[in-house]
C-alpha cells in the first residue's frame, strides 16, 4: 500500500469515527431533551 492510499484510508477511517460520534452525540442530546421534558412536567404539576 503506497503512502497516498494509506492516507486515504486514514482519512476515511477518521471520517467514519467522527460520523459515528456525531450520531451518538445527536441521539444523546435527544434523550437529554426527553429527560428535560419529563422534569419540566414534573416540576410544573
Amino acid at each position, binding site marked *: 500500500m503506497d503512502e497516498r492510499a494509506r492516507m486515504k484510508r486514514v482519512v*476515511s477511517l477518521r*471520517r*467514519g469515527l*467522527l*460520523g*459515528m460520534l*456525531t*450520531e*451518538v452525540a*445527536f*441521539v*444523546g442530546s*435527544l*434523550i437529554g*431533551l*426527553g*429527560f428535560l*421534558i*419529563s*422534569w419540566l*412536567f*414534573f*416540576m410544573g*404539576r
Partner: protein
Amino acid sequence: MIRRVWREDFRIIGYYTGLVTIGVGLLMLVPMVTSLVFREWASALDFAISVALTLLVGYVLALVSRTKSTPGLTHAMVIAAGSWLVAMVLSGVPYMLSGHMASFLDTCFDTMSGYTTTGMYLMQDLDHISQGLNMWRHLLTYVGGQGIVVLALTFLIGSTGGAFKIMVGEGKEEKLEPNVRHIAVLIWRISLIYLGVGTVVLGVVAIANGIKPYLAFFHGAYIFMSAWSTGGFAPYSQNMLYYHSSAMEIASMVFFILGSFNFALHYAVWTGNRREILRNVEIVSFTITVLTTFSLVCLALMQRGVYPNAVALFRRGFFQLISGHTTTGQSNIYARTFVREWGPLGMLATTIAMAIGASAASTGGGFKGLRVGIIVKGIVTDVRKLLSPERAVVMGHYHHIRDKVLSDSVVKSAAVIVVLYVLIYVVGTVVGMAYGYPMVDALFESVSAGSNTGLSCGIVQASMPTLMKIVYMFEMWMGRLEFLSVFTLFGFIATSFRSMRVRKTAV
C-alpha cells in the same frame, strides 16, 4: 408492465427467489453453530434438518428456473414480495420442530413478525427456548431490518441491472452508490460495525448486571440485533423489564434510535457531511414529532399520577414512546400497563408515534419521517401560494442529503403511501373491534402491527382469533414492503390466471 405472463417470467422470478432461499438456508448455519456451542443437541438437529430442507428448496428452485435474463421492474417487485413469503415459511421449520409453537399459523406469524422487524410473538414458553432458537429469532429480525434481498445481493447475486429494482421492491430505494452491490455492502458494513460496538457495550452492561460473562455477550448481541433492526424481540418474555437496568435501557435506546435513521444519512455523516444530521428533513420531522408526542404522554401520565418522580416518568414514558416512534417495540412495562395505567391519551399519543414511525430506507416502519416532512412542507407551500400574488412563483424545497425541489408528484406519492398505511391501520382496527376489543386497544394493536412496531396492549397472544392473526400478518408484510411490491405480486398472480385462461380458450 406485464400484460401476459410467459414461462420466462416464471423462470426469472423462480431463479432469484431460489437464490434468496439459499441465502436463508446458509443463514440458518449460525443458530445451528450456536446450538452446538451450548450443547443443545436436539436444537442443533432441528437446525440441521431446516438447513438441508431450505437449501434443497432453494437449489431446486434456482436450478429448475435457471436463466440469464435480467429482471424487469415487475419481476423485481414480485421477487421481493414472494421471497419474503417463501422465507417466512421455511424459516419457521426450526420453530415448528422445537415444539414451542401451537400451530403452523402461529409459526408463520412469528417468522413474519421477525423478518418485518415487528417483534410480536405467539411462541409458547419463550423463557425456556434453546439458545440456538433465540439466536435464530434475533438473527431473523437483524437480517429483516437490512432486507433479506440486500443480504442475497451482497453474497449471492452479482451486480445485475435488475438488482437495484429488487432492492426498491424491498423498500430500500436510496441509491448511495452507482453499483447496487456496493450499496448492499455499504448497508452491511454500517450494520456490522454497529453490531460489534453494540454487542460489546450491551455485553459489558449485562456483566455489570450480574449475567455470566459468556452469556452476557450473547444477551448483548440479541438486544443489539433487536434494537438496531428496530425489531423488539428479547431473549425473555418480560422483554427489557427482565434486566431491571436503566443502563441497559439507555444503551438499547441509543442503538434503536440510530437504527431508525436512513442508511443514506448514516452514509452522508460517515463520509464527512456531519451537518446533514441537523438539516435532514427526516431528522427535523422525527425530533419534532418525538417531542410533541412525548409531551402528550407526559400530560397523560401526570394527569393519572402514574409515576412518583421525573426519573421514573422519563425511564418508562420516554423509553416506551421512543420505542414506539422508532417502531422498535422493546418494552420496559407490562403489556396491560398501557390499558390500566397509561389510559386513552397515553395510548393514543404512542399510537400516533408508532403510525409515523422511523426514517425511509432504514430498518424501521410506519409512514416514515420523510413523508411526513414532505407532506407538511407541501401544505406550507400551498398556503404560501394562496397568500402570494397570483403571478408570484412559489417553490417549496426540502433537504434530504441535498436540497430538492418539492414537486407536486413528490407530495402526491408521499400522500398515497400515507393513505395506504392509514387504510391498513383502519382495517386491522375494524377487525379487532368486530371481535369485541375496545377501539383504543384495537387501534393500538393494529397500528403496532402495520407500522412493524410490536408494542402490545395485550391483544396479541396465541389464543386470539385466527382472522386477527392473518390480518396482522398481512399488515406486517404490507407495511414492511410499503405496498407496491405486494400489489404487484397480487397483480402478477391475477395476470397469470388470466393468461392460463386465454391459452386454454385458444387451444
